[in-house]
């Protein structure tokens, strides 16, 4: 699909989705909201991890950082500014961490990013207890449901548009080269370190912005809930089921998963997570390319 067409399609869907607050009940709207959030998380995760085949489990850390920017800053700045600031903070954090650890690959990188969530969780818990003398924070005077929805919609559209643009750009090509043969790409002039940090940071921005945007839906914020590893887990699962190398795969898959989550998670939390865990295992073992790979297998050129 040509870049221009893809962007147009995104905008078109966006406009249609923007009308929903006035057409749907609150309950269904919440469902759509959750779906948008997961789609944006999965798409921005795939932006970096798809082409490079890196496995980042840092989504929870970025999301949580964004949530806390809102928790701390909402009283002194407008909602949109907090969302942007959340994204920016997460991006900055990603850039610093990325500079330190992106030279690692595979298992090491993954476990380190996994530990990031724990790390930020404990750091913020400590900070809150010592300096703010509190465990959690209350969000007083949150914005209205429509404002939240539209903001999340805008962030999601921005994430999808960015993903489209990156794919068509030099950065996207560099990432593909890194995923195919990183050393080879280096000998052909790719500054792999810079490319990886750039994509990792970009991906973190959206996760942070989403955290900042969604934080207002919970009136009480505490580290354990916003830094939950489940967010990272869900993101990876969605992207992998859909097919992290494609754009449309994670989006479609997120619709399915957000529905599943909304209906099952609150009622049977443990069984739900158990099943998801088993699902991920089965997926990796039997369909590592995700559902999208079933489609591309048909179309591959045979020589």
């Amino acid at each position, binding site marked *: 699909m040509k870049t221009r067409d893809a962007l147009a399609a995104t905008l078109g869907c966006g406009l249609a989705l923007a009308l929903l607050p006035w057409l749907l009940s609150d309950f269904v709207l919440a469902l759509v909201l959750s779906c948008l959030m997961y789609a944006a998380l999965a798409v921005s995760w795939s932006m970096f991890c798809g082409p490079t085949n890196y496995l980042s489990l840092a989504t929870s850390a970025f999301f949580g950082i964004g949530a806390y920017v809102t928790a701390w800053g909402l009283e002194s700045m407008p909602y949109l500014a907090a969302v942007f600031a959340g994204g920016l903070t997460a991006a900055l954090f990603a850039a610093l961490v990325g500079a330190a650890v992106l030279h690692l690959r595979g*298992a*090491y990188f*993954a*476990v380190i990013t996994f*530990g990031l969530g*724990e790390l930020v969780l404990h750091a913020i818990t400590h900070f809150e207890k010592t300096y703010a003398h509190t465990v959690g924070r209350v969000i007083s005077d949150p914005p209205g449901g429509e404002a939240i929805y539209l903001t999340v919609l805008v962030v999601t559209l921005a994430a999808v548009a960015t993903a489209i643009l990156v794919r068509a750009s030099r950065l996207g090509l560099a990432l593909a080269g890194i995923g195919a043969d990183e050393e080879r790409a280096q000998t052909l002039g790719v500054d792999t370190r810079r490319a990886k940090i750039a994509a990792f940071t970009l991906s973190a921005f959206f996760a942070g912005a989403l955290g900042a945007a969604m934080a207002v839906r919970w009136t009480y914020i505490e580290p354990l809930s916003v830094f939950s*590893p489940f967010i990272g887990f869900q993101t990876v699962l969605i992207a992998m089921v859909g097919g992290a190398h494609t754009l449309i795969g994670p989006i479609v898959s997120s619709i399915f998963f957000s529905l599943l989550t909304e209906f099952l998670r609150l009622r049977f939390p443990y069984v739900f997570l158990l099943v998801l865990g*088993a699902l*991920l295992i089965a997926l990796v*073992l039997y369909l590592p390319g995700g559902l999208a790979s079933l489609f591309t297998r048909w179309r591959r050129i045979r020589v």
Partner: protein
Amino acid sequence: MGFWLELAASGLITGGIYAVVALGLNLQYGLMRIMNISHGEFLMLGAYLTWLAHTTLQVNPLLFMPAVALAMFVLGIVVYRLCFQRIARTAPSVEVIEARSLLVGFGLMFLVQNLVYLQWGADLRGYSFLTETVEISGARFPANRLAVFGFAVAASLALLAFLRWTLFGKAVRAMMQSPTGAQLVGIDTAVLHPVVFGAGLALAGVAGGLLSMVYEISPSMGEPYTISALIVITLGGLGSAIGSLVGAFILGLVEAFGMHFTSPSLKMLLSYGVLVAVLLARPRGLFAR
């Protein structure tokens, strides 16, 4: 003087646990490139098994350790057969094996943790065992901590000896250094891999069982240990069993003293800081060959 001894000792005791966990992870990753991110969950299982045995059957936890090891060993073989064996067979490269094993481990983490949540709920559980205080040269320790330490060190040394001196242990080391060469001389990976994986889980389970004697247990207790194990392996170098042992004690001491001088909730920050520092300075670990 007694106070510093106690502090150092508590660091060493923690280090002992770390050593057992890290050795298990090291075996799995070093041999099969399986970074078992769910390792901590099996530690947790071992803790629950021990708690269960003690509270329902009144079994002495220390004496129960071999049973825990055996049970986790068998579980490990089953888990390997079901979840990891296929990866080695179908993956096109080592990097893909690593990536897929990681994802499978990630899924296992949620699976195991929530099984336990389902069965026993989220409440903390625990029991008392050997809580009398013992005095050694001016420092006072609860007896259970000493027992844990002793057992952990004994288990680690036993494993090291096993790797060094038995035929099987040598096969494992050979395999880690040169997979093709080892296969050429007749070492069978189809047997070796599940057994080593099982051994890794057995070690994790024993660590968990030991921990249950000292601390309260919960389904989420395992995660931090996985990370600590990784830090230890990084410190000590992949593939180096001695490195894991030394690295574990170093980490334990750093944490104990660091926590005392800063704050207990900064423990994670400290350990993580150690990890990043080592990775930046010596990416292959302090002891890597």
